[in-house]
């Protein structure tokens, strides 16, 4: 966005970014430092020695992947529908979805419990995936809709003249042009589902299906709290998300510059 051709200007830009980043970096340093206090790397070893870590990661991956798939497909369809299709009273539906954003998770717990039992999905991944998706969708639809709004109507008109149906337009115009926001949606859904704590805790009983967010609790109890290992668990849990973010960002940016659009 900024263009800095000369060296001093480049340096100034670099300096601004660096100064701005310091407050963000500071707590992270304190955190990593904390995770290495006491037994140092031993804290990380202790986390891995919990034993179930492989199972935890597997569950988290399954839950996150399923949630992302559902959220992505439904969000894109919904965003396209709300933004470009002529549906009667769509604004009312849109606001009804948005209203759902306002409910705190804690309030939802009791009804969700009853629902999952009634559906017979309690103690399965579905019990977590479906509510997680439902909780993410209002947010992603809101974001994606604004983004699809930004796709020029002229493109659709042109496509229609060429004889393309709604679905073709969706497939060949909306999906490619929304790649950057898709990356963001996937990343945000990943965060939401990977970090989900309360729902898996309550809705899944089987120890073999528990998620990584339960890792820290091996080191926290009523009368003890091994902060160093809690932080080590947090670092270990966060790394896959950061890697996923970088990969996705890279993938979608490449898609953009490869000229998939325009």
């Amino acid at each position, binding site marked *: 966005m900024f263009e800095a051709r000369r060296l001093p200007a480049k340096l100034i830009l670099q300096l601004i970014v660096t100064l701005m980043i310091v407050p963000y970096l500071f707590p992270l340093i304190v955190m990593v430092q904390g995770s290495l206090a*006491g037994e140092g790397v031993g804290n990380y070893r202790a986390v891995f020695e919990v034993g179930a870590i492989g199972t935890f990661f597997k569950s988290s991956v399954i839950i996150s992947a399923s949630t992302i798939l559902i959220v992505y497909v439904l969000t894109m*369809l919904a965003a396209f529908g709300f933004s470009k299709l002529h549906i009667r009273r769509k604004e009312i539906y849109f606001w009804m979805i948005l209203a759902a954003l306002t409910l705190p998770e804690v309030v939802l*717990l009791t009804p969700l419990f009853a629902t999952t039992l009634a559906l017979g999905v309690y103690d399965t991944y579905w019990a977590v995936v479906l509510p997680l998706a439902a909780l993410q969708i209002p947010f992603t639809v809101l974001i994606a809709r604004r983004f699809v709004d930004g796709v020029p109507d002229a493109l659709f008109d042109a496509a229609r003249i060429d004889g393309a149906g709604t679905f073709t337009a969706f497939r060949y115009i909306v999906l490619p042009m929304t790649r950057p926001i898709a990356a963001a949606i996937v990343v945000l859904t990943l965060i939401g589902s990977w970090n989900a704590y309360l729902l898996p805790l*309550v809705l899944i009983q089987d120890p073999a299906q528990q998620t990584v967010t339960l890792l820290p609790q091996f080191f926290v*109890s009523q009368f003890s*709290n091994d902060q160093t290992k809690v932080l080590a668990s947090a670092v270990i849990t966060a790394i896959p998300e950061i890697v996923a973010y970088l990969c996705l960002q890279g993938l979608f940016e490449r898609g953009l510059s490869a000229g998939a659009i325009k």
Partner: protein
Amino acid sequence: MLGSSRVSKRRPLGAVAALMVVGLTLAGCAGGAPAQNADQGSADSGNITWWGWTPDATPAEAYIKAFNKVYPNIKVTFKKLTIDGYDAAIRPALASSVGPDVFAVAPGAANGSVDIYGVNAVDLKPAVEKTLGADWESKLAPIGVSSLMNGDKLAALSVGSVFSGTIWVNKDLFDKYGLTPPKTYDEWKKVCETFKANNVGCFVQGAAQTAFNEDTLQAITDNVAPGVWEKALKGEVPWTDPAIVQALTIWKKLFDDGIMQEGALGMQQYPDANNGFMSGKYAMVMMGTWYMQYSTIEGNTAAISGAGVADPKPFTQLPIPFPDVAGTGNVGALYGDADFGLAVNQKSKNIAAATTFATWLGTSAEGQQVVADVLNDIPALITTQPNWDTVKLVNPEVQRPALEKLISDSGKSTEPRLATVVADLQTAIGVASTTVAAGEATPEQAAATLQASAAKIK
């Protein structure tokens, strides 16, 4: 690919969602009066699940292992929840038909309140009578029984109790600066000045976590005038009682005179104050009998390491009575409740096996010995004492007599800690403690506000 997944995903989801709406209507909402499952199952075989926020995974494993030596055919699965998450999780679980068979409850208003969840529990009186005989009440610590009743029902069996009223000191730090643990207010102040001059923190309290302020305020009030706090909790004397106003005044003085650490109102007892004490940054902390477990070499080393200290060296920690801050000579008060009890879910399909487990851990000699040796709880079965030959203390010479005295004194105490305190009153006491400490209210004003809030609670 996206096209195909769209087609295949869309239908089932639509169907699921439609089903959901139907299911929701059928499921209903409010949990009515729970009915006890008629089929009790077998008493010495089966699979049972046990939910609790305590104990830790390791002691829980030890309990289950010892239990399986006696009952090899009952498989117990322990699910440990966090303190904060427990209520949110147990409430819907108990309302459902697939909740845990055994679940932890605690007296009072904290997590897993027996007053709230006791309605879902089986009355364990007949089971205890069967194992301990008709005079069972004389064999169990009184505070564990009385605080886990739900009406006339013995809703849960206490596994052990915790008591507060003591301050724990880091004896090595006191020795290093030639100090002795304070017995009076002036000694306390002087000790703190010396520590401060040597850049060592004196007394640490996580005053943001107000439940622990109650411990300290109760200790001060018991020192000013024994029994007044307990009576105020029961509503027999108003919170504006002069003894309580004086206690709040002394509480404020602790902040003003630099006995309390700077920034106490922004710290929590766990993990902040605990880590401060364990890492040797502070020499004194207000903690109860649950701190006994850090007197062992293993427990102490792990706690220091957990506080973020590299290469942990165990130190000698000792419980001391709360100093005679009011100059009345009334010291040594201890007050406690059952730490947690095991309740059997009325809707369990294995009531008999679940009862076997709960009574074994709460009333059998083998079960209680395992509890005692963990040094977390004072055992519920009066006759049980820790097995000092297997417990490796950091400094047995000074620590063992101190711990033995603490255990026997606790066993005699009948003063409740949080058991009779409802959540709204706890909140009100918390407000009084922090407003006074911050100087936003005088002790008189805070006591009046507290009384006004307490009067509203019914």
